[in-house]
């Protein structure tokens, strides 16, 4: 009873707080709407953008500067150490593993996701009941990386061949006649690709849906004209379809690339970066929150940030071009 009353009073407090905020906003908006003449534009701008800008500064810009500052400081964030943390990232023995792995992830996972997505888009384009197959392929997109990691962890689970198998992959491989399947997650360097498969499994639906829409948006007369000129099959695909959806392809590729650069959840749930599968983002977490070395953690964050920035810029430029064409 007591708890119920307490709970209700808490809900009441929360509702009151929301009401007060809404009232203040209404008053501000009302006053802003009364503004006339030359001041009208600027005032509207401040009223509508102000809160968002403040929150962005507080939640995004300030932390970004603090992280950058932290990357030049020692483990406790007390003393200035110059570029020592960056030196550690690129020279310490063993660190090459996560640097190389991250590069492999950035190249392989987006390219395969996009290629597979494009293939599926083309194949499904001519199928009946296209939407059903598309929904099924798109579905993994709704699963979180951690959830996917746990699902695939069961697929890759290893047991001695003499024991009843738990892992789907081992069992399938054994049915195919391999007597002694490897312990998948320890199988270097292929375990990296096994982890990438999870990412691809999730992203391929996204690539397929976007690319399929782009293909359908190619004007019929272009296709017709190319057919009249004698282009069919591969030639039509490579000389007409691809150039027509080039912008979309690049956007898809770079979007997945950005997601991959930040990849953390899959590696953390599957191997925690052990067995030669470490990547930059998980190392960043390990340095910051396991080893409590804020300096190295921040430096890794800055490296990630610098890595993502050019891709984001390129992505935005492509998006703008796309829009201006339409």
């Amino acid at each position: 009873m007591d708890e119920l009353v307490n709970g209700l009073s808490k809900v009441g407090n929360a509702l009151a707080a929301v009401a007060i905020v809404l009232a203040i906003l209404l008053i501000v908006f009302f006053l802003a709407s009364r503004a006339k003449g030359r001041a009208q534009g600027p005032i509207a701008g401040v009223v509508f953008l102000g809160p968002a800008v403040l929150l962005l500064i507080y939640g995004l810009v300030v932390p970004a500067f603090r992280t950058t500052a932290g990357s030049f400081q020692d483990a406790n964030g007390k003393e200035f150490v110059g570029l020592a943390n960056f030196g550690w990232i690129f020279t310490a023995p063993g660190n090459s593993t996560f640097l190389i792995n991250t590069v492999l992830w950035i190249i392989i996972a987006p390219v395969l996701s996009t290629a597979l997505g494009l293939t599926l888009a083309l194949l499904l384009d001519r199928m009946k009941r296209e939407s059903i197959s598309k929904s099924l392929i798109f579905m993994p997109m709704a699963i979180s990386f951690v959830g996917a990691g746990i699902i695939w962890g069961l697929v890759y689970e290893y047991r001695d061949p003499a024991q009843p198998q738990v892992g789907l992959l081992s069992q399938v491989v054994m049915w195919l006649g391999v007597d002694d399947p490897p312990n998948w997650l320890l199988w270097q360097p292929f375990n990296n690709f096994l982890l990438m498969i999870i990412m691809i499994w999730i992203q391929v639906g996204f690539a397929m849906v976007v690319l399929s829409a782009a293909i359908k948006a190619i004007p019929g007369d272009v296709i017709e004209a190319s057919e009249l000129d004698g282009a069919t099959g591969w030639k039509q695909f490579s000389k007409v379809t691809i150039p027509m959806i080039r912008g979309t392809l690049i956007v898809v590729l770079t979007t997945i690339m950005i997601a991959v650069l930040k990849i953390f959840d899959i590696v953390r749930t599957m191997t925690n970066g052990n067995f030669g599968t470490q990547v930059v983002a998980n190392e960043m977490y390990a340095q910051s929150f396991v080893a409590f070395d804020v300096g190295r953690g921040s430096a890794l964050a800055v490296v990630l940030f610098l890595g993502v920035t050019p891709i984001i810029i390129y992505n935005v430029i492509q998006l703008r071009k796309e829009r201006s064409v339409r």
Partner: protein
Amino acid sequence: MSATMRRRGAALLVGGVAASMLLAACGGSSSSSESTAAASAEPAASVAAGCEAYAAYGSQPGTKVTVFTSILPPEQQKFEDAWKQFESCTGIDIVYEGSDQFEAQLPTRIAGGNAPDIAFIPQPGLLAKLVQAGGPVAAPQSVVDNVDKYWNPAWKNYGTVDGTFYAAPLGSNMKSFVWYSPKKFAEWGITVPTTWDELFAASDKIAKAGVKPWCGGIESGGATGWPATDWLEQIVLRQSGGEVYDKWVNHEITFQSPEITKAMDTLAAWMKNPAYVNGGFGDVKTIATTAFQDAGGPILKGDCAMLQQASFYANFWENFKPGTTIAEDGDVFAFYLPAIDDAVAANPVVGGGEFVTAFADRPEVAAAQTFLSSAEFATAKVALGTWVSANSGVPLDTYSNPIDKLSAQYLTDPNGTFRFDASDLMPAAVGAGAEWKELTAWFAEDKSTKDVLAAIDAAWPAS
């Protein structure tokens, strides 16, 4: 305001019920003295009936103490039950918050000016780190007195940073256990080993019978590798004694020193021995991919004979087979991992536990802190089951389950050589970073002992 009034009404009610329970529990002559004390108390007196034991903590109605911990439900409820009477008698509301990301969140919360009043810190290494960064406040004298009275001095030492005592121990766990199946042992004609040599003679005998005698798993998500650090610690303490162990923890001897290298070689002949492991899972490497929670499963099926794991592993057997009995004549039980040489370390025990650290010095926080270090709290919490305290003020008969009782017996042994889990004492970069990672590579990738030890030493922070 009105909420406080309601709370007090409820408090009186709870106090009354608790008082009758207390009286029933006391029994004999003491109960009569208690009841006379309660009866003679004036109605207007500040001490309510049944609250005599809590009078020392004062009455501070309307105050609140927040507790932040890594201990999650269902254990949370037992804590709340154990301090319910304290809350109703003193009026201090203890607000419990558990998180499985405790280690990551606590420093962030402190840095953000949002520190809890009290945190149960499971790693003295983290405590030292926090003290350096600023936050924890020194323990009040009342807590110091309790710790001096009830705990082995080794424990107090672990709550002390740079000569200042901060944190009293709370729960404890005993890591020097070997889990086995009494039925299978009888089948194989093996009695519980009491010396290190007997342990390995038994292992050889089981191996000859065609069963891998040991199983193990060190996969634990973000903490993968920790069980392996426990194995190494058991050997170091047994082989080289407490002094070398302390020096190792303080980095006065390195991982590459002859003592630790020798311990690694002993561990290699045990848990990396293909004739011994990994029963029920496969080859030695599967230790790295087997979840520590799953590692004991094959013992019930007889695919594996023994698992070196802590006392809390008792909670996992139910997952493998509902209704598994944990007893000396049951489905599964544990024996004490024998000493190697009594002259080096007598009754060596490696254990762990949480430390009650305060981040505020308000009177209600000090009162809660003192209560949590008292024998009364420990006894009440132990009576609720599946929890062990190294507090010697808890009567051994309070323990209802045999494993907890066995643990408490070793943890409170005045002649025992108790040492805290070394990886929890080392700087996090080593104890929660490099050591986990490198020992995992030692099992998974067969990385050489020399390289593993060198890499761990290299991770030791410079300052």
